[in-house]
């Protein structure tokens, strides 16, 4: 029934289109208002021109689970290591949809027709237009409209996105290679200043979740630009005024310092180009001024004025984080640029103007949260679903027409409720400056080109694997095709708008692919391969351990490291791995030191010293990697008297070993190996989930339990393994304890970038400055 419904909406939108020619719907219609059948808790924010609708739904999707066979039936059932089953899981999701007010009635009709199982009685409403549409909403939906304070909603929404969406805030730099510079999520988002530029300006100081105060404002705001602009230029629409402004020259209308001084006002450091008097040259009857020039002058006047006030308030309250929002800003490069310029000028660069990717949704999010207080949405962590979110669209007049058309129609944001609360790794040296990703593809055009190409190239293979992973399902091919279209579309979008989801990184490309796969019910395309690999590797475990034990201590340490590295080369996800022959080639090469990054000697030296108290090991792939590489390494640590915490993914990603799989694997290994068994029994070997389902690793968003374990065990060594976790991310991560990053570069482009060759080895052992490299004196912050 869903498709029938969406057909209806696209049909009626087309009817509207006949009247307003510039509106066209370019989003696939079956993507709007998803999961309405389970929707509850509606909220709506109706602004001057856009409506934002929020609802909460539960999404049923497939997840892959692993389970040990019952011991009694094991022999009979199968020769497999464990059982894989696909189960239905229900997760919570927040949907936000933004559309033009012109569509409101059509949308309400659509919602009414599809709202099936809801017990919802009220709809939270905010925004200036809420009262205007109150009657319509109540009549159409049969829900009682409950108005919420606009500013309260705005702040609540702002807190929510700042906390839950990495790369939510950005600095706008018009002339830089990448216009958008995303900020890393701060461990503490408070205090901050929110400057909301609607028809007027409100300046709000936010000190905590519930404490905020309007400390000032100004009547010169977006309404002044629009109203005065309409009077001066006879141009009615706000967007058109901005377009006029972007083409104008303010110097013909404004009186500049040089118009008064003939040059600069040197003793005060005022340059000649500075505006001394806005509209100062228009005080004459004998001259005509162009619309463009007047609009530009007006834009400067208002932006500078707001920037100045914002700076005065920021200074008075000693705040350095200043976010700008409101319809005057909303994704308009022109106004973001003038506001940024103004803030730079008035604070001499001390304060940066910050903007928000989801600024338009704040009111709707806040109103929704007000209505959902009993569900305690703030107790959970939420994650942006890249598959279901439109991403940031530029409305810059010089952007290509495809995006401009989209920006005017339907825009979506979907957030998934994560199963666990995510927090910083307590061992980060400086959480506020930690950036997970090694390369920012938003800024690095060459790298961007390469990786986008790379992911597009790999798409066929991913589709094939997805189909192959579900041989019993005949419609898998069809779903896989939909996945292909979806992901390819994402890649195309990112090619034009690399900033759509925050900084573009290899990690975000990988995560987007996982989100898209999940969206089309391919929860774990590698499950069988992993099972198979694990099975094979387990057979060699005892032999491997035995041969290691025969080595001298020093030989063994080297063999263990090479084992981890060699194991890591077994990776079905990496493009360059075709056949086993290469592995032997690698094993041969890896014996040749020095490696590309090589601090093995320091590591060995350290091993001669006292054992570490506790090591946290972020593991990578299934099969050979975990079983023949990582576990023997862990075994040695345990033997030295070091406790080990193995952190693996909570959910599947590529062939990475998941926590569920690792539980079974360690059980099986423990049955063969008394060292591992003792470790588990004595609680010196612990398995934890990372909280992530990504092939990469963001140390600022980890399972709260992991953080707790790390603290309790006084972890003094962090080991990160594999290209995704130690090269694409965390290569430069600074930790407050010793750290070891091990990876083999399995991509020749990347190897080239880092100054090495394919299969170059990175072995990066680091001791934080000021800490003794020897001894277990290194303590963790508690």
């Amino acid at each position, binding site marked *: 029934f869903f498709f029938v419904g969406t057909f209806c909406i696209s049909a009626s939108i087309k009817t509207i289109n006949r009247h307003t020619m510039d509106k066209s719907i370019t989003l696939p219609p079956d993507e709007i208002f998803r999961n309405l059948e389970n929707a509850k808790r509606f909220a709506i924010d109706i602004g001057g021109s856009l409506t934002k609708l929020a609802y909460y739904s539960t999404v049923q999707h497939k997840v892959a689970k692993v389970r040990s066979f019952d011991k009694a039936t094991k022999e009979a059932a199968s020769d497999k290591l464990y059982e894989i089953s696909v189960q239905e899981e229900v997760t919570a999701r927040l949907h936000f949809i933004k559309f033009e007010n012109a569509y409101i009635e059509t949308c309400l009709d659509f919602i009414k027709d599809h709202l099936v199982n809801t017990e919802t009685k009220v709809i939270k409403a905010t925004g200036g237009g809420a009262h205007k549409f109150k009657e319509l909403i109540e009549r159409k939906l049969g829900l009682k409209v409950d108005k919420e304070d606009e500013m309260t909603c705005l702040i609540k929404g702002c807190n929510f996105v700042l906390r839950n969406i990495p790369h939510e805030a950005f600095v706008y730099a018009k002339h830089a290679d990448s216009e958008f510079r995303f900020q890393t999520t701060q461990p503490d988002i408070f205090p901050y200043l929110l400057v909301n530029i609607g028809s007027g300006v409100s300046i709000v100081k936010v000190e905590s979740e519930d404490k905020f105060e309007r400390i000032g404002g100004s009547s010169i705001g977006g*309404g002044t630009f629009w109203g005065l602009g309409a009077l001066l230029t006879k141009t009615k629409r706000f967007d058109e005024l901005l377009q006029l402004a972007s083409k104008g020259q303010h110097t013909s209308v404004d009186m500049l310092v040089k118009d*008064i001084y003939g*040059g600069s006002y040197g003793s005060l450091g005022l340059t000649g180009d500075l505006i*001394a008097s806005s509209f100062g040259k228009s005080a004459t009857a004998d001259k005509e001024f162009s619309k463009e020039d007047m609009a530009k002058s007006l834009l400067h006047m208002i932006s500078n004025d707001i920037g100045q006030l914002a700076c005065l308030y920021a200074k008075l309250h000693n705040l350095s984080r200043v976010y700008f929002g409101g319809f005057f800003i909303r994704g308009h490069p022109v106004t973001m640029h003038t506001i940024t310029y103004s803030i730079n000028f008035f604070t001499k660069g001390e304060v940066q103007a910050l903007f928000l990717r989801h600024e338009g949704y704040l009111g709707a999010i806040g109103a929704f949260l007000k209505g959902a207080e009993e569900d305690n949405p703030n107790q959970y962590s939420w994650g942006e679903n890249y598959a279901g979110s439109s991403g940031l669209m530029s409305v810059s007049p010089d952007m290509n027409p495809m995006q401009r058309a989209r920006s005017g129609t339907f825009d979506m944001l979907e957030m998934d409720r994560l199963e666990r609360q995510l927090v910083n790794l307590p061992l980060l040296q400086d959480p506020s400056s930690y950036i997970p990703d090694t390369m920012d593809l938003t800024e690095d055009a060459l790298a961007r080109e390469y990786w986008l190409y790379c992911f597009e190239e790999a798409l066929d293979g991913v589709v094939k694997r997805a189909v192959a992973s579900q041989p019993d399902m005949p419609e898998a091919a069809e779903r896989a095709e939909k996945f292909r279209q979806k992901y390819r579309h994402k890649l195309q979008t990112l090619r034009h708008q690399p900033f759509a989801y925050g900084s573009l990184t290899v990690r975000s490309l990988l995560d987007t692919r996982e989100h898209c796969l999940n969206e089309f019910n391919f929860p774990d395309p590698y499950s069988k391969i992993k099972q198979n690999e694990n099975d094979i590797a387990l057979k060699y475990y005892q032999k491997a351990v035995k041969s290691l034990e025969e080595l001298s201590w020093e030989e063994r340490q080297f063999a263990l490291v090479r084992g981890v590295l060699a194991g890591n080369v077994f990776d079905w996800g990496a493009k360059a791995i075709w056949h086993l022959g290469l592995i032997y080639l690698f094993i041969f090469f890896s014996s040749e030191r020095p490696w590309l990054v090589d601090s093995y000697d320091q590591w060995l030296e350290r091993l001669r010293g006292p054992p570490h108290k506790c090591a946290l090991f972020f593991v990578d792939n299934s099969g050979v990697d975990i079983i023949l590489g990582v576990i023997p390494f862990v075994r040695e640590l345990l033997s030295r008297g070091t406790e080990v915490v193995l952190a693996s993914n909570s959910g599947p990603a590529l062939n990475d070993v998941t926590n569920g799989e690792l539980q079974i694997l360690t059980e099986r290994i423990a049955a063969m190996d008394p060292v591992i068994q003792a470790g588990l029994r004595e609680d010196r070997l612990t398995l934890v989930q990372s909280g992530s389902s990504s092939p990469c690793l963001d140390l600022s968003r980890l399972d709260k339990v992991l953080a707790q374990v790390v603290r309790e065990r006084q972890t003094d060594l962090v080991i990160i393994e594999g290209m995704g976790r130690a090269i694409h991310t965390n290569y430069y991560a600074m930790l407050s304890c010793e750290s070891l990053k091990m990876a083999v570069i399995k991509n020749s482009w990347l190897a080239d970038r880092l100054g090495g060759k394919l299969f170059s080895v990175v072995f990066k052992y680091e001791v934080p400055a000021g800490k003794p490299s020897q001894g277990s004196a290194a303590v963790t912050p508690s």
Partner: protein
Amino acid sequence: NKSKSFPWFGMDIGGTLVKLVYFEPVDITAEEEQEEVENLKSIRRYLTSNVAYGKTGVRDVHLELRNLTMCGRTGNLHFIRFPTQAMPRFIQMGHDKNFSSLHTTLCATGGGAYKFENDFRTMADLELLKLDELDCLIRGLLYVDRVGFNGHPECYYFQNPSDTQSCVKKPCTLEDPFPMLLVNIGSGVSILAVYSENNYKRVTGTSLGGGTFLGLCCLLTGCETFEEALEMASKGDSTNVDKLVKDIYGGDYERFGLQGSAVASSFGHMMSKEKRDSISKEDLARATLVTITNNIGSIARMCAVNEKIERVVFVGNFLRINTVSTKLLAYAMDFWSKGQLRALFLEHEGYFGAVGALMELLKTTEDP
């Protein structure tokens, strides 16, 4: 007594207006009279016997400071202004009257002292002594306040600024004037924190000043002069143009303590075509005036709080014949600071830079 030879001028060449002060000695001895060159006499006669010069020059007779003793001489200080646009004609006149033959230095401040320096040199063979405009402003202001306005105080404030009925102008003195926040509203606005005659800093400025008011009024209403613009503004109603808090919230916005009558969005009603078609030019002029004035008030107030200064002195020609703005500023300072800040005004609004320039002339004669 080797006092500086006449004529004594001080000039402030701003973005819109040139302000000229002229000291007319009234204690000229017969001997001096005889020695006085014809040229000098004619200048004196021309300036003191007229109240208007050419089409646009005006002498503000009501501001004249009589029987003033400066540098050992007694005389009257005259206040003259003309548009900066007329500057080429003024320089031409200097040439025609052979000004360069007089033994005087032309002390000039304001941006025009720099901009027109070369024109003075080449067209009239005159060398300007260029002076910093903020130095001159402060020096001139303190001087005029000290000598008073013909026996009356130079300074005034408004009593009961929050109540339009009982709001009255009250004279006062700037006794112990420091620190003060000095807000100079010319074409643009400069805001200074003044701690002593020689110790001050420019805190900030804004480009939304008198020039913006007049410029926007000209574009919106087709008026041509400041007087015309103010006249229209005095008859208009800005609430037809501005969106008030109550227009949005139906009343006060209690959550934030905003009164319903407060302006939420300047020109906010003009977003609607219907409203645009129904307002008068007078309403537009009034709204422009209120918008610019409130904005200056708001920035000045923030600066006062940031600089921890309670006395805010407003000067500049924007305030000339502009009681709408002076009262609004007085109200804004009082209301938003809950009575903490006091707005002060001076009778000679825009002339202090020129007075300061004249004082520099007299100072240079005493020094060598």
